[in-house]
């Protein structure tokens, strides 16, 4: 084993892991918030994420077609795209909740889960249908924004692109905003109250349905933002892109303790780092016998192991049983 090589690539892998981790953290928040309020796995969240990515690429392509993409300053473009992606995904999440989940509230636990799987599948092909009709293509590439691709060579083995920094900063900003919203405002307090005990919250004059919609809106918006950032960072998207990141983000949420928001962030980062290291080091350590292809297995095995040995997750949020 070439130890020097292992050391050399370390910073780069660390950076990749952090970016991936923030991506997972943003998506995981959607799962964990909904789970906290309804105790239900919103399986369609991965498509909510993808819709954000598609809205982003459509706006960028439209700007490009108008020939004004180059003219606008990139922060403006980025904020515009992020806002649009968040609005679309948040709105979609609320719509899904109203149509596919609310009629099933109070039904046995697996009924809404099956419905959510159905919504997820339906949306995948709906996106494909719309894009097929509109562009006659459903594998789309994010237009490059030149300033974002500028790279700084920090050391010989580590270079950082502007867009990675943008992803990290944007993710941090959003996580901070969410933290303030949930912990420092009346609305946040109401959401937490509903998560704690719906009946009691309702007795205190909180409109439970509205708070649930709001939870979907916020979680969906975070997912949409993650979708746009995913597109900016990795470029290629298609309607089925969301499945694996969605599953991994759910793993992250469980890892941190589902229902627990700081847990989702930590779980996302931990999973992103583990995966980045597994992807680049496994192949080196086993002399190519087990390569990066196994990083998915790695994540799913983690999920299985956590659920078996520590279902409460790292931060140990107590998962209540509906009695």
């Amino acid at each position, binding site marked *: 084993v070439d130890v020097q090589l292992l050391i050399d690539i370390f910073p780069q892998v660390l950076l990749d892991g952090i970016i991936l981790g923030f991506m997972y953290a943003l998506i995981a928040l959607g799962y964990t918030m909904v789970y906290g309020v309804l105790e*239900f*796995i919103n399986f369609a969240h991965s498509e909510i994420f993808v819709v954000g990515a598609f809205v982003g690429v459509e706006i960028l392509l439209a700007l490009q077609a108008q020939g004004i993409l180059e003219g606008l300053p990139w922060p403006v473009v980025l904020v515009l795209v992020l806002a649009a992606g968040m609005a679309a995904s948040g709105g979609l999440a609320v719509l899904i909740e109203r149509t*596919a989940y609310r*009629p*099933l509230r109070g*039904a*046995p*636990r*697996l*009924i*809404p*889960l*099956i*419905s959510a*799987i*159905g*919504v*997820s*599948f*339906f*949306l*995948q*092909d*709906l996106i*494909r*249908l719309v*894009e*097929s*009709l509109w*562009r*006659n*293509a*459903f594998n789309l590439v994010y237009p490059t924004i030149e300033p974002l691709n500028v790279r700084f060579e920090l050391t010989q083995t580590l270079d950082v692109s502007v867009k990675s920094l943008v992803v990290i900063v944007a993710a941090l900003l959003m996580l901070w905003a969410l933290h303030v919203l949930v912990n420092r405002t009346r609305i946040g307090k109401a959401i937490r109250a509903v998560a704690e005990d719906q009946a009691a919250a309702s007795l205190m004059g909180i409109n439970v349905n509205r708070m649930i919609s709001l939870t979907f809106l916020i979680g969906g918006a975070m997912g949409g933002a993650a979708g746009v950032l995913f597109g900016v960072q990795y470029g290629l998207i298609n309607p089925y892109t969301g*499945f694996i990141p969605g*599953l991994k983000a*759910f*793993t992250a949420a*469980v890892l941190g303790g589902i229902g627990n928001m700081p847990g989702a962030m930590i779980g996302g980062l931990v999973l992103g780092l583990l995966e980045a290291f597994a992807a680049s080091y496994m192949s080196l350590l*086993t002399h*190519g*016998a*087990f*390569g990066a*292809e*196994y990083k*998915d*297995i790695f994540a*799913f*095995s983690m*999920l*299985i192991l956590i*659920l*078996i040995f520590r*279902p409460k997750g790292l931060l140990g949020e107590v998962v209540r*049983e*509906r*009695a």
Partner: protein
Amino acid sequence: VIAQAALAIVGVAASTWTVWAFPRSILAFLLFQASLLVVYLVRVPRWLRVALGVLALGFIMPGIGTVNGYYLEVATQVGIFVALALGLNIVVGLAGLLDLGYVAFFAVGAYSWAIFGSPQGNVVFGGGFPLAGWWFFVFLVVGLLVAAGTGVLLGLPVLRLRGDYLAIVTLGFGEVIRVLANNLDKPINLTNGPKGITPIARPPLPEFLSYPLYLYFLVLAIVVVVILVNRRLEASHIGRAWEAIREDELAAQAMGVPLVRLKLLAFACGASFAGVMGVLFAAKQVFINPESFTFLESIGVLAMVILGGMGSIPGAIMGASVVTVLNLQVLKGLSLWLNELRNAGTVILGYNLANLPTQLEPAKYERMVFGVILVLMMIFRPEGILPVRRRQLEAFHDGDAGGPVLDAPGAAGGGAR
């Protein structure tokens, strides 16, 4: 009764004639399938129903197959999915354990025969492969055992989990199996990776049959066995224990039902059906690769079970037939039709269809079909189209009166502690 018997007989006869007269028409074949449903639904003496069923499936269907080979292929596929749906029905419908990675067991069965029944065996174990065709029948049992064993192996650690966690873990497991199949071409070449394995040996052919017919009858035979086993299981104390677990784990446990053992049994039973069908699938296709065993397939089988009605054997059969036919015939037919219109440049409402995007292919929209089925069934008719009679009586649309279907709230904690 006489009128209904006449209806059934006339239905089968008329639809047979239609298929005979219009061998290329999808509608005619759909009519034939519908006539089978009529046979099931009408109130006629049991012997007549069985006789009509045997006549239709054992004689008329092979006859149709000689006129239009594609229909035989469709019928064989339907048979495979019926067996899969019946297997999943035990796990989801009877025992109430949502398994989202069911196709993994199908894959395990398929690969167990594919490796030994093809030159791939030489790569793994040295010379002597492929095994002769008659080993196929041995491997039907081997596939069953391997799949059941895999089911137990997966079940042992995860069956203590709560319902929704169990669903996600089985999903992860299904993906793990697929990724393994995709990547185990190194360090030792076991599955030949994404390139897949071919040619896979088929069972030796009796002289008077052709392979499509032979495979059709094999599938039919296995499906009949599976149905019989299912019916016996459902009526046995094991089946009733499964239903007790589904309705209320805590209560079942209090009544002395050994939870873990019975859940494992359910997993193993469901998996074994998939394993057997996997072996047959490998032989039928001659070529398999990981693409056939995706999450999409698992959800497809789940949609079949849910459409027909969880826990209902006729429901699973009907669900499998409807969904398979929808995918293989209706969507494909729509695709072909659209293509013809596109090529002909037909104009509808002032829109020239030649301008229709080429990416618009209804045949590729299986997921939408599955998705719509799952959502609509959950919201409007969670008991399915052909529900279990008892469940029908329970009328569980009205609040709590009928009790929960799956993993009742409050029952959830039972195993987890």
